[in-house]
């Protein structure tokens, strides 16, 4: 077992900690490594600030929906740091409320991809054979769908149906639509782990002791997939936010007057040349959120998989 390895950073030699330490839980170990990743820490702080301000949005003195025509299209000022839109609504307030929608959609999509992807991957990997073949062909088919086009199709269909629930393309509908096309990464990741672990001794042992397949899959193998799943889910949250923004930008996502970062940008298009702040700020919010999430994901990946880092710096 590797106890220490050295990593060359610039010209100085940095001590690299051992991948395994006795009496250290997985979470402590991951946290210890995560802390070392400057990008991940900066990303966490930034995302923390964004989440906090978004939660505190009701403290804003302005209402996100009521119009205030005399104050329309004001450029950024002290009273309105992001300016106001064509109905005189404070853009900062709308960005914060939009952030609630966008982040909620992102979080819900992650949950949906877990609920669909993990069982499919687990069953395919654990049972193998024909079950695996069928499930993986379905996964492949879903992967070769042009996802943005199908997203547009699904929301166009749901928008005109008379189902009471889906009628207005609300947050849950959009999350379901995006989630139903994003579970494949999880399924493949989980399948790969189950495929490697199902022949291991601890699985045979559990089997001999009479554990059911369900118990082995859930209790014995599942914990081993946590690392990759956390990393993939973090990145998935970023993709989901981007996809929701894109859909709403096209007019197929969250419908105004409910603000979301995407439909704020959509609204900004016609005012682009004269009132550019309408386009700049919502996009900046998306950009900052996603870059934070990606840095966090990168840090988590390194923290869960030190082997890869060690391999890249040539120590293994």
């Amino acid at each position, binding site marked *: 077992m590797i106890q220490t390895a050295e990593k060359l950073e610039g010209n100085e030699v940095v001590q690299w900690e051992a991948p395994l330490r006795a009496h250290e839980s997985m979470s402590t170990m991951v946290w210890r490594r995560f802390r070392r990743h400057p990008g991940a820490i900066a990303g966490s702080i930034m995302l923390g600030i964004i989440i906090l301000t978004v939660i505190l949005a009701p403290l804003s003195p302005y209402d996100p929906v009521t119009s205030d025509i005399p104050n329309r299209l004001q450029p950024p000022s002290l009273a309105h740091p992001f300016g106001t839109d064509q109905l005189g609504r404070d853009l900062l307030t709308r960005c914060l409320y939009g952030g609630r929608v966008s982040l909620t959609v992102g979080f819900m999509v992650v949950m949906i991809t877990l609920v669909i992807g993990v069982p499919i991957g687990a069953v395919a990997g654990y049972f193998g054979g024909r079950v695996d073949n069928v499930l993986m*062909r379905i996964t492949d088919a879903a992967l070769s769908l042009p996802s*943005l*086009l*199908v997203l547009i199709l699904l929301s166009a269909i749901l928008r*005109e*149906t008379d189902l009471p629930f889906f009628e207005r393309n609300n947050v849950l509908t959009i999350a379901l639509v995006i989630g139903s096309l994003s579970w494949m990464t999880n399924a493949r990741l989980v399948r790969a782990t189950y495929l490697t672990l199902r022949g291991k001794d601890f699985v045979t042992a559990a089997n001999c002791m009479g554990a059911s397949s369900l118990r082995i899959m859930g209790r014995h193998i599942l914990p081993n997939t946590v690392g990759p799943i956390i990393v993939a889910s973090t990145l998935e949250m970023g993709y989901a936010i981007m996809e929701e923004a894109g859909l709403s930008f096209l007019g197929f996502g969250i419908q105004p007057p409910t603000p979301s970062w995407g439909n704020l*940008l959509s609204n900004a298009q016609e005012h682009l040349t004269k009132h550019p702040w309408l386009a700049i700020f919502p996009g900046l919010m998306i950009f900052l959120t996603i870059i934070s999430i990606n840095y966090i994901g990168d840090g988590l990946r390194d923290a869960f998989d030190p082997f890869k880092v060690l391999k890249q710096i*040539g120590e293994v």
Partner: protein
Amino acid sequence: MGRYIARRLLQAIPMLLLISIVLFALVNLAPGGPLAGYSRSRHVKPERAAMLKRQFGLDQPVPVQYVIWLIGNDWMKVDADGDGIAESRGERRGILRGDFGFSFRTREPVLGEIGGRLLNTIYLMSVTLIVVAIIAIPVGIISAIKQYSFFDISVTTLSFMGQAIPEFWLGLILILVFYAWLDNPFTSEPLLPSGGMHSLDTGFSLLDWAKHLILPVTMGAVGWVAWYSRFLRSGMLDVLHMDYVRTARSKGLAERLVMYRHALKNAVIPLVTIFALDLPYIFAGSLYVELLFSWPGIGRLYYQSAVKRDYPLLMAILIIVAGLTILAGLMADIAYAYLDPRVRYD
């Protein structure tokens, strides 16, 4: 190798069928069906709605509609006038024989609507991908070779930013800067055009076409340059620590030779697969580009058809794109098997 290709081709067919069934069911099982917008409108008389339904074959059960859509109905009798007697021969030939039906909106054959626009999209995508390759490949290699140098760290930071920029926002900002803010110092016109493939009033000029490409290509390329340079960097780093690279170095080969003859070849192999997997996303990205820059391509056509609920056109574009994606995946697998002798064909 021949058997491998044949087997993969045979696997692709059920997959495409599965995709087509799912998409067809989605479109046709939605409450109200594809004509929901029509039949709810008060301006359309019920008789006319019924006639439209019959004309588009929507009065049939969905599985029958699927079969007709797939292989046509010219081999069976259909009831064209709605009197309950099937008397005339059908006229649809089915998508397997190149008949994608008629657009709800223009009543023109779908394939004619798609044809020219598909070429416009392919033209835009090809230029974008060439630009991506020209920038991303050298950048990825250099930053792997000079790992942790100033260049590498700046590239890594920039590529994080490039991957986080929403494409549609980038397009808006590009229009803002290069169309609204910056002027051509000689003519005081906007520096770059904000839409279209070429100017309408003047004749053909290469410079004019090139000018119309700059902003759309930039918008489409940034994210992919970021992603591929990062991908190539990590692929190159993986390869650089392989035993055979050490062997090459220890027998005294020049570093250049080791890098370009030994390492690079193996580092680009995974790129083939990842590129095939990315194709649908590249295609989707071009939808934003085409919309923002009024590019008469297939993505913009798809968007317009979705707004107008022109389902035959939507279905046709979806199937064509899915088919192209599966084909690209197939070619990537074959190329992979050819490039990497470790891949077994059986």
